[in-house]
């Protein structure tokens, strides 16, 4: 055999949670210097398997071998001692602390008397940040960075230890293309050093670009491992969800255009975005494409009453409106699926049903009380429509897999039946099957006459669902395209600010 012995081997891992068998006898191994993809639908058990590896959970059955020696990993600290680093799907940084403190949390370099050696700390963190092409320094407060940048800090944290195994759990879900390139470079470097890498992602193009082998989980059971070179997207999809998908067809069948629902004129909000003008008609999906930080999210938040515009007009159905708060926005028929599900989208300690019905709870009453039946009916409807995997509606949202949490947020805002639906990164962390379901759903909604704004950093996504695409750069609209006449090159140019409408 020419294959090197695996650094890590998991055998027959079983893990149950109340009401779910999350893992049902899973085998998995990682060789030194390989990138091993772990794939599967939302809730298939990928994160759970990796948390077992990192000592966060304890398996009910099964064994873990490192360098062919059986080990028991009782805590994250022990995992670290075994050379295992997990970069969590959900960020776990201390908002109020600096970048440097977060990266070296718990093991800050010390001087005599136990004082923190800030100088050494800054130097060491500076080197790592440089490696990651970061344009922020060690002393920056974490909370002031965008999600993408926080993610890079999380990755930086992994680079401080000499790791044998590094697990990336959906690292690119909120990274820009430029940041992805940096991440892939980092992965190449680790690989060259003989580190074994586990890579979890729902994005096929990444999987085929950087991985050597692919293992697939389905409903907690192990479906097999393939060499990346010898397989294709179809085969993997088939293994993951048991059927194939038509992923690449551009499915823009224009809906009949209706009345103008939203018209925005010269809208500005301080330095976040300036002079934004556009319209959205009923039955139309307008995609907002741009780099993270282009001002799209802030624009969406302004339309939803979360920010005060400093200039400009917003008209709904021709009538000028002032939207002072989210509750006013909701009254006027606007829904926003926010960018960050954990912080803005969900009450993690509440059950699935209560989360979905939260914005309309006042309308779901029988007498003074909440009408239980009506609530459950709404939950059931969106569970089926979005294929939400949860044991019952009583399950706390916090214990769902990341993708299923996202589906709860989408269900919550779809169930409001808004006139104007704004979705910000709607398929972040969602598996291929559900992603195409959600895209189909958005198109369907457009056909029913909803006006929809899709903010996304994923080019295939905007191309896939939009009737018109608006490119933004640095807080300004650079160009508007109709979906039939757009090319990828045009889009890339427009979001990097190389062209503008005037030039075109």
């Amino acid at each position, binding site marked *: 055999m020419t294959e090197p012995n695996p650094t890590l081997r998991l055998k027959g891992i079983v893990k149950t949670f109340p*009401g779910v068998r999350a893992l049902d006898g899973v085998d998995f191994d990682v060789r030194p210097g390989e990138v091993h993809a772990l794939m599967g639908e939302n809730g298939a058990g990928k994160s759970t398997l990796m948390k077992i590896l990192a000592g966060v959970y304890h398996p009910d059955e099964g064994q873990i071998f490192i360098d062919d020696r059986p080990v028991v990993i009782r805590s994250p600290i022990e995992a670290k001692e075994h050379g295992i680093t997990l970069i969590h799907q959900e960020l776990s940084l201390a908002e109020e602390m600096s970048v440097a403190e977060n990266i070296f949390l718990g093991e800050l370099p010390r001087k005599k008397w136990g004082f923190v050696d800030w100088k050494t700390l800054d130097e060491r963190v500076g080197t790592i940040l440089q490696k990651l092409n970061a344009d922020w320094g060690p002393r920056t407060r974490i909370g002031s960075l965008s999600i993408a940048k926080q993610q890079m800090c999380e990755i930086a944290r992994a680079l401080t230890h000499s790791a044998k195994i590094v697990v990336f759990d959906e690292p690119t879900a909120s990274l820009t293309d430029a940041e992805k390139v940096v991440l892939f470079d980092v992965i190449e470097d680790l690989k060259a050093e003989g580190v074994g890498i586990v890579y979890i992602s729902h994005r096929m193009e990444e999987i085929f670009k950087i991985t050597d082998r692919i293992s697939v989980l389905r409903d907690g059971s192990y479906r097999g491992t393939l060499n990346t070179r010898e397989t294709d997207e179809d085969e993997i999809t088939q293994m993951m969800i048991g059927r194939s998908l038509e992923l690449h067809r551009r499915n823009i069948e224009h809906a009949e255009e209706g009345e103008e629902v939203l018209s925005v004129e010269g809208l500005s909000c301080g330095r976040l975005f300036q002079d934004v003008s556009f319209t959205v008609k009923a039955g139309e999906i307008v995609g907002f494409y741009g780099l993270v930080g282009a001002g799209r999210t802030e624009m969406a938040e302004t339309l939803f009453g979360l920010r005060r515009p400093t200039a400009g007009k917003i008209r709904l159905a021709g009538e000028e409106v002032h939207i002072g708060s989210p*509750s006013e926005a909701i009254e006027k028929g606007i829904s926003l699926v926010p960018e960050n599900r954990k912080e803005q989208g969900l*009450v*993690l300690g509440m059950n699935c049903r209560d989360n979905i019905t*939260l914005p309309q*709870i006042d309308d779901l009453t029988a007498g*003074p009380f*909440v009408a239980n039946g009506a609530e459950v009916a709404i939950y059931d409807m969106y569970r089926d429509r979005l294929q939400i995997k949860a044991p019952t509606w009583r399950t706390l949202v916090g214990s769902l897999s990341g993708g299923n949490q996202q589906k709860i947020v989408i269900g919550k805002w779809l169930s409001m039946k808004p006139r104007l639906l704004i979705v910000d990164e709607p398929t972040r962390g969602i598996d291929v099957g559900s992603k195409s379901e959600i895209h189909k759903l958005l198109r369907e909604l457009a056909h029913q006459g909803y006006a929809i704004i899709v903010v996304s950093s994923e080019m295939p996504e905007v191309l896939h669902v939009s009737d018109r695409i608006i490119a933004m750069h640095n807080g300004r609209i650079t160009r508007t395209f109709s979906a039939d006449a757009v090319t990828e090159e045009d889009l890339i140019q427009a979001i990097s600010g190389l062209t503008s409408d005037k030039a075109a």
Partner: protein
Amino acid sequence: MAALVGRLGNGDLKGLIARNGIFIAFVVFMIAFGIGVDRFLTFQNLENVVKTTAIIGVIALGVTVVVLSGNLDLSVGSMLSFGTVMVVDLHDKIGPGAGILVMMIAVLALGAVNGLLIGFLRLNSLIVTLGMLSAIQGLTLIYSGGKNVDIDPSTQDTTWFRVFGRGEIAGVDMPIIIFFALAVVIGMIVAYTPYGRRVYAVGGNPTAAVFSGIRRNRVVFSTYLVSAFCVGIASIILGSRVMGSQNTVGQGYELLVLAGVILGGTSLLGGSGSILKTVIGVLILGFIQNGLLLLGYPFFAQWIVTWVVIILAVWLDVAAKRGRLLSPIA
């Protein structure tokens, strides 16, 4: 009870104990004391305990709503002394009905001050209500001039005001009836109305609540009105039972109340807990104190034991959540 039975369906024994720990602890505790201490499990004694607990209990109902929304209210103790001094003093001056009305308005106004500062100005609830604790003490002193107040002894047996603390219906003491009735009403509001849902949402994740169109400031404001309302009711019961008051009444109650809430299992972080839990929490607290008294311990022993019990309760609660007794991080 329905919730308890409903949950028996899924999960193993360990999960069952973790979820219903406080109920089980309560039953075990009652049986142990019932066997160990004569007179403990007599109807007379039980009724007596519930009756003395009713005042703490009524206040704890309101504080639970505040805690569920993610804040604290430490001003309830001095608000209680303010309320009783006022309602007793006004009884002879303007009559019991008008006295109750004026007192309720005054107490609600104090709650509104808490609510404005914490809800609308977003000040820290610990600081604001701690400040209110001493500010209200000051107010009470100004009001009473430091003197004890009482209801004219000649009318004490005839005024209808006596019904709240000394009356009974079908042999059950009035404070108990008021406590349980109020628990049912507030319990239903919290568990089954849109308002209750908003309170949980604001306590669980304030940002997500705002993103869901909930007016967070108003919800927080309102919880302090609920808390003040409950203190007002407690003032009526206490004033009626004692027929007098002074400015040291209610001292330290804020901690006892909070102890009951925590003991029941409502999270101080907000977003999780219930009125039923609080009712059980304050009852356990009452029974512990009573049991110790019957065992012949001096009253100050209760304070220490109460503290130990609370620490144990909080510890077991986190231990159940993380599945082990000691912290996994060294």
